[in-house]
Structures are given as structure tokens and as C-alpha cells.
């Protein structure tokens, strides 16, 4: 029982990271139907910005988190302007290929500048943990930070999308770009803004991972990026609460599978479960069936 609770704590922490990255995937997909494969690399860049700020400038946790989110949102907007905007009206396959190219470009550019070796984050959060039931359950300070920040950012995002004028414009663009433009919505600005928010979330995830796992490298974005994409699809791509649900579910499934004797085929089992769920609910957990208009 204690072990199960401990595993749930592990799973929620892992899931928060997936959820934060998945949010960016889902937002970009929701608005321009593009699977932004470079998203995992923005997360990596976020980790490196956080690393530079904490190591070389000696900044604390909160300022590095915020600055790295700002840095990533600028990067996200630049990528959109340079790589995606010119091909917004071409076929979806060329947009996808561009996204993959941007992803590889970022990976190997970083590899050139910072070298492929693993870097270690300085300890900005002191190791402090709460132990319950005679040390059978241990909650680390970092677990609490990760989950709390994820939930906070998700609520903030939900507020922006549902309650603000900007959010209304985003939803309008997502529904029908041309109609929104006719109503006076600046579509370019809104798309830029979406990239900025999504990238900021990825940046936050990058810093959190750097602090939680302590190691970063230029290729760290590839696997979590892929898993977060799966999480987004799993929850229903384009739906914000879906991404969070998908992220947490994937983290949980992975943890539970490796907890119950499957550490060797952890990923295989986790993804087999995902395939099964998608067979039953093809649009993801929260997805609605949309009828194609002919």
C-alpha cells in the first residue's frame, strides 16, 4: 500500500513534465493543425537557458524559471515566423517535414555550441523531503514544486483561453481562420501568441526537468517530446484539459507498469495500453467525434 502511494507520487511528478510539454503540442495543433515536432527541442533550449542562468549568473529558482520561459517564448515566435509562416498554406506534409527539420537543426546546432556532453544543474532547490509512515513514503520538495507549478500554469492557461479577449480570438482562429480574419482578428498575431505560450510552457518544463533530474544534454528533448506528443493525442489533440489528462495518464501508466514487474518493457506496455485506448476512443479520451463536412 505504502509502495503504491509512493509510486503514485513518482507517477504524478513524471506526468507533470509530459503534461507541460503536451500543452504546447496541443495548442499549436489546435490552432494551425501543425504537429510541431520542434517542440521537444524548445523544451531542451529551456533547460539550457535555465542552466546558463543558474550556473553562470547564479540566479535562483523563480527568476531562472521566468526568464527561461520568456526566452523560449521568443524562440518559439521566431521559429514560427521564419520556418512555419511562409508555408502555412502549403500541404500539411511539407509543414510536418519543416517541423522535423527545425527539430534536428536545433538539436545539432546546440550540440555544436554546447558539446554533446551531459551537464549538471546546480542545486538551486535544497534537498528537503517529507517522510511519512516511518520513511516508507518520501515526498521530495522537488516533487511538490513540479506538480504545483504544472497545475498553476495549466489553470493560468485555461483562464487565458476561456476568459480573456485574446483567448476568445485564439478559439476563433482555431475554429475558422478566414472567418476570424473577416471579423477583424489579427490571425498572424494570434498564431504568434499561441507559439509564445506553448513554448513558454515547454521552457518551464525544461527548467523543472533540469532541477528534478539534474542532468541535461542537447538530445534530451527527443524522447519526452515524442511521449508528450503521444500524451496530447491520447487526451484528444487540440483540447487543453486533454493534454494535461494525457500527460498525467502516461506518467502514471509508465510508473505503474515498471512498478509491477515490467521495467524491461515499460515503454512497450505503456504504449500498448495507449494503442488499445485509442482503438476504443479514436479521438482521445476527451475528444469528440467531428463529422467531416462534404
Amino acid at each position, binding site marked *: 500500500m505504502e*509502495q503504491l502511494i*509512493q*509510486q503514485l507520487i*513518482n*507517477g504524478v*511528478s*513524471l506526468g507533470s513534465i509530459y503534461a507541460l510539454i503536451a500543452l504546447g503540442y496541443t495548442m499549436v495543433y489546435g490552432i494551425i493543425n501543425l504537429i510541431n515536432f520542434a517542440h521537444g527541442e524548445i523544451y531542451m533550449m529551456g533547460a539550457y537557458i535555465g542552466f546558463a542562468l543558474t550556473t553562470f549568473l547564479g540566479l535562483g529558482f523563480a527568476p531562472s524559471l521566468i526568464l527561461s520561459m520568456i526566452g523560449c517564448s521568443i524562440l518559439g515566435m521566431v521559429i514560427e515566423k521564419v520556418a512555419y509562416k511562409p508555408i502555412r498554406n502549403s500541404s500539411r506534409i511539407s509543414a510536418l517535414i519543416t517541423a522535423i527539420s527545425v527539430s534536428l537543426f536545433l538539436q545539432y546546432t546546440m550540440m555544436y555550441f554546447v558539446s554533446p556532453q*551531459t551537464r*549538471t544543474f546546480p*542545486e538551486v532547490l535544497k*534537498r528537503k*523531503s517529507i*517522510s511519512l509512515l516511518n*520513511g516508507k513514503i*518520501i515526498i*521530495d520538495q522537488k516533487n511538490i514544486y513540479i506538480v504545483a507549478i504544472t497545475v498553476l500554469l495549466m489553470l493560468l492557461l485555461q483562464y487565458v483561453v476561456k476568459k480573456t479577449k485574446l483567448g476568445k480570438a485564439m478559439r476563433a482562429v482555431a475554429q475558422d481562420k478566414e472567418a476570424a480574419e473577416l471579423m477583424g482578428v489579427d490571425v498572424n498575431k494570434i498564431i504568434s501568441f499561441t507559439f509564445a505560450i506553448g513554448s513558454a510552457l515547454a521552457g518551464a518544463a525544461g527548467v523543472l*526537468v533540469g532541477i528534478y*533530474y*539534474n*542532468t541535461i544534454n542537447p*538530445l*534530451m528533448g527527443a*524522447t519526452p517530446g515524442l511521449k508528450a506528443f503521444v500524451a496530447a493525442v491520447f487526451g484528444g489533440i487540440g483540447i487543453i484539459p486533454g493534454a494535461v489528462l494525457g500527460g498525467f495518464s502516461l506518467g502514471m501508466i*509508465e*510508473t*505503474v507498469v*515498471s*512498478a509491477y514487474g515490467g*521495467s*524491461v518493457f515499460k515503454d512497450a506496455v505503456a504504449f500498448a495500453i495507449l494503442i488499445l485506448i485509442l482503438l476504443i476512443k479514436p479521438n482521445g479520451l476527451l475528444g469528440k467525434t467531428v463529422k467531416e463536412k462534404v
Partner: protein
Amino acid sequence: MKKVLLIVMSMVLVLGMLSGCKPSTVSNDANSKDADTIRVGLNYELTGGAATYGQGLVDGIELAIEEVNKEGILGKKIETVKADNKSEDTEAANVSSKLATRDNVVVLLGPATSGNTKAATPAAMQNKIPLISGSATEDGITIDGNGNVRDYIFKTCFNDSFQGIMMAEFAFNDLGAKNAAILADTTSDYAQGLSKNFNETFTNLGGSIVTMEAYQQKDTDFKAVLTNIKGENPDVLFVPGYYEEVGLIVRQARELGLNIPILGGDGYESPKLIEIAGKESLNDVYYSSHYSPLDDTEEVAKFKESFKAKYGNYPDAFNALGYDMIYFLKDALIRAGEADPEKLKEALAATKDFKGVTGTLSIDEKHNPLKSVTILELKEGEPTFLKKLDPK
């Protein structure tokens, strides 16, 4: 057009054959038995990805040769023919056959890595020149695909699997552990070899393996498996693997309150381990290694001082392994009585209780050394020499 090409090609071929033959006929005239030097071929990674290993070994080798040449062996001096294999398999094979056929060497030393050593073995076998590797730890180096011993190939460093055996004995006898857990890297042969042998030895000694878990290289989250392991209450945790993942594993284990001893092999040897795991996590961590500068025996102290005098810094494991190879060779040459590859091969195979700075070794029937293992303990991240463990 085609005809011209054909003529050019055949000319190139003939030229190649001529230039290939000439030096070898010349060097064959100089019979190695009558020469006044003993020619030793060095096939090392002097540039490329494994250059630090190759250069480290060569530094050790050159220091030892300097010392040995003061008195000479069998009235002769050692003369080296050094060649760079650029850390590439194909180049290692080329260098090996060049040294064996054209430079008329008595023995080939190197390469440093297991992969390059494998590439260099065919030339040594075909030309019947003994090859000694001081650092290729992979198990199959001296054995061919059919399980037969490669007559001319020798090793002076222990096998990967041997570390698993020694660590199991250490856990059972020295740490008094009865229940052990294993968390092994499934993506590397090195870790699989260690894990298999640890398991067998520990079980044979009367201990039991309570759980076997796995991870993959580049994994970052180990908390789920570690929570599992914690639930099984083992006395020790064996984690064969490389420092990157091991660093994270040790750190996360300590964060979860899993404070049992953690054991591993020479993959732990890196300053990065301390960086990743953090000083406060690295207590009660033990690993096996080839050599420790903290070893206080007389031979090691003498080696350390003469190395420092020549190069200005203290030697590492690779320097020590290189240094030992020359004395190992000297030992065999004296017993062989002359610098003849065939007799040298017999003498190398018969090596018994050779004392070097990396431990005492005897060559077994598979041409692997039976050798003591150095066990290091990490205290607050600092490696401290714990003991040398001799094989039974």
C-alpha cells in the same frame, strides 16, 4: 575509353603489388633473432574518439620501456614501432597487419578499446605474432566464434564478467549481504555480463537475488524501479552500468531513502559521477577498478613517483595498465629465452603470479588474466582505496 581505364587500373595494381612487396622482403632479411633490438609494435588510438585511452597506455608503456632498457632484456634493448590507428576499426586492422608483416615486430601491443582490438586480431593470428591488449575488457577478445582460444591473443586486464564475480564475493563476504537487488542496463553488453555473473556467483555463495530490474541508457527517471527495490528490502544494490545513469540512480535512490550500499564496476570511474549524483549521495558506494593511485603498496608508490617525474602528473588506470604490459612482456621474454614470436607465445601463456602495479596476475587457459581487483569506496564523493581482492 574502357581500354584506357583497364590499362590504368592494372598499372595501379602492379605498382601497388611492387610497393607492397619490397619492404617486407627487405625486413625479412634482418632476422629478428640476430638483431640487437627487440622490436615491439604499438597499435594505439593516438587520435580520434578513444585517444585519451590510447595515449594514456602509450605514456605508461614508454615509461616502462625507458626503465627496462637501462638493463636490457636478454642483452637487447626494446625498440618500438608506434602507429596511430585513429580510433577506427579499419585503421586498427591496417596498422596491425603493417606492423606484423613489414616492421618485423616480435609482439604487438594494443589497441586500447575492445572494438579496435577485435579488428586487429586477424592480422596477428595470420602472421603468428602475439598480440597483447592491456585494456580491452570485453569477454570474447581471446576466444573465437567457435569457442576456441585464439593462440596469439592475450589480455592483461580482467574481463567484464570477472568484475561481476568479484563484486558478488565482495558483497557476500565483506559486506555480509544476504539479499541483493540488481538494476542493470539492458542496452549494454558490459552491464549484462556483469549482472549475469554477479547473479550466479552471489547465488552460489548462498545469497539470494530478491529482485532484478532493468533500465535503458538515456533513461532519466528511475524512481519507480527504485521504489520497487526499496519495497523488497535488499541488503545491497548492484548497479552495473555507466556513470551517467548510475549517477542519476544513486541520487534518486538516496532521495527515496534507499540508503543501502550500492555496488558497481569500472563504469563508475569518472568525475562526472560526482557531479551528477552529488557529494552527499555518494556514500556507501563501492566499485571495482583496475588500479587505484591510493593503493599504498611499494610497487605502486615507486611507479607513481617515476611517472610523476617523467610526465609531471600522477598516473591514472590507463597509464598503469600500459606500464604493466611492458613488465609482463619482459617477464615472458626472459622465460622464452629469445625474442621469437613462437616461443614468446608459449611463455606468455605460461605466465604465473606476475606482480604488476595493477595487481598480481596469472594467465588462464583462455588467455585471460586471473587478477586481483581493486575495490574503491566512495565517501562523500571521494574515491578511497578500500582493498584488493584476489581471485580464488
